[in-house]
């Protein structure tokens, strides 16, 4: 039974042809990459199992030609096998052809030959940390094992792990290094700051203690989230600032720095997704853009009225009062120009956050917005668009 109101709602949210095309291009690129990968796999398989068409024809036509072609095919297969075997031996064996290749040896917690463990670092300890330049894949694998081990979990990372650099984007606060591997159908990923190597989070990993039980109430869930938090190599003076309950089985805890009583920074934050029904944590994510508070003691903070005026709201309110449904102001922590990854500041600041909603929501782009005004200088340091 169709409902006009619902149909209209979905029609209005239809993406433009540009979006449709962009998604198709992405699929197309991945499809091509996948096709190439499959071609490679199929070719390898044919070498081992399938008889080439020319050989089938030769068998029918000429026994001597068949003999020579068969012999040539056998030699080719043996050469390929030997070459693959030698390659694997070079990569994973005990005789690296280059000294640096030794670092590619698969790390393991129990391996007596493992390199000495580097202590896990938190952002608080990074000031004198060397940049990641020169740090190898095996360094990050080792760090991963160590972090999980310190948290009470022993894992084996298979040889098929992947290692890549993810570039800073509108939704990624910095360049990150991702180490990922498959385990039980899930992809586990561990993230590090690409610049200083600091641990930034884990996804896909089932963090469950052996004594995990269903949390009877909020207090037990809080305690369990805190236990996970305290096991991580992260800042340890954060407090639970927020717990969002998406479902009975997915609660998101944000442990944040309390800048002053009641004022938390979402940019110095450790997020943990908890399943209170099983006692598992599913995700750990660290946000870190430190607060820069360089005001002098004699600096007076802006009043709310001055902040509204600095953001241009007084004239707007007087002239267009009937167009605004509400304007609210509160103290917050933000990152200047945070919506623009190329200009985003690497420090956060205390600000006045002014949120306004328009009465008429026919504006398809914005039904309101947020302005951020520096708490001391009065400079407008950021904008956001609200639906």
């Amino acid at each position, binding site marked *: 039974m169709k409902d006009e109101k*619902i149909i209209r709602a979905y029609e209005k949210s239809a993406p433009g042809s540009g979006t449709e095309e962009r998604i198709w291009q992405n699929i*197309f690129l991945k*499809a091509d990459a996948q096709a190439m990968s499959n071609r490679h796999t199929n070719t390898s398989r044919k070498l081992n199992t399938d008889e080439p068409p020319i050989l089938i024809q030769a068998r029918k036509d000429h026994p001597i030609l068949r003999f020579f072609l068969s012999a040539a095919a056998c030699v080719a297969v043996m050469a390929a096998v030997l070459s693959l075997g030698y390659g694997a031996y070079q990569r994973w064996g005990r005789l690296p052809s280059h000294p640096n290749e030794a670092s590619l040896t698969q790390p393991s917690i129990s391996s007596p030959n493992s390199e000495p463990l580097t202590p896990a670092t938190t952002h608080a300890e990074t000031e004198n940390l060397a940049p990641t330049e020169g740090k190898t894949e095996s360094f990050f694998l080792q760090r991963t094992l160590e972090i999980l081990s310190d948290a009470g979990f022993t894992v084996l990372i298979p040889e098929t792990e992947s290692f890549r650099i993810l570039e800073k984007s509108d939704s990624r606060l910095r360049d990150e290094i991702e180490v990922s591997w498959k385990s039980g159908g899930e992809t586990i990923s561990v993230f590090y700051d690409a610049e200083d190597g600091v641990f930034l989070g884990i996804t896909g990993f089932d963090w469950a203690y052996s004594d995990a039980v269903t949390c009877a109430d909020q207090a037990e869930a809080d305690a369990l989230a805190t236990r996970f938090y305290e096991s991580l190599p992260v800042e340890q003076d954060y407090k639970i600032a927020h717990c969002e309950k998406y479902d009975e089985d997915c609660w998101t805890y944000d442990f944040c720095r309390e800048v002053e009583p009641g004022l938390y920074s*979402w940019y110095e*934050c450790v997020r943990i997704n908890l399943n209170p029904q099983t006692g598992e944590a599913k995700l750990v994510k660290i946000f870190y853009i430190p607060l820069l508070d360089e005001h002098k003691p004699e600096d007076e903070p802006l009043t709310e009225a001055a902040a509204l005026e600095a953001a241009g709201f007084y004239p707007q309110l007087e002239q267009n009062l009937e167009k605004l449904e509400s304007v609210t102001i509160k103290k917050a922590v933000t990152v200047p120009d945070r919506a623009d990854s190329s200009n985003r500041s690497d420090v956060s600041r205390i600000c006045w956050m002014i949120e306004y909603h328009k009465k008429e929501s026919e504006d398809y782009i914005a039904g309101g917005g947020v302005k951020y005004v520096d708490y001391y200088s009065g400079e407008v340091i950021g904008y956001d668009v609200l639906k």
Partner: protein
Amino acid sequence: MQDRQELERLYRLHFRTVWNICLTFLKNPSDTEDAVQETFLHLLRECTQFESEEHSKAWLIHTAKNVCRDELRRHRRMDLPLDEARNASSKEIYIDETLEAVRALPEQYRAAIYLFYYEDLPVEQISRLLNRRQNTVRSDLRRGRAKLKKLLERSVP
């Protein structure tokens, strides 16, 4: 695996349906785009032979729903600090009050409401697509409708 021409044909044919399903479940436009992409990549990897357009559509709806659920479970708002996640919700897509209300429904009601009131599918088919009993789907629709009504009453001044 589907060949490229067939994949493109199915993409053009069912893009809007898959988009709507993903939009119903995911709040963030970029997550929606990712989920649409992932759904069609599943199609690329699978060897499913479809008997009809209805069959391919049903397969895509089912897959899109599963992709979204996986996405929700694994990565809920993980990429953005909380205040950004709140504000990021509809920068590029216009969401009216009705759709906002559908998206605010508990997960189990959303797909049923969409499939029944937009796609015009019978309860029997929705039951197969969502892998829920017909009576459960009827109850989801009843409860979803009641909740939707409340949400809409609250959102309209």
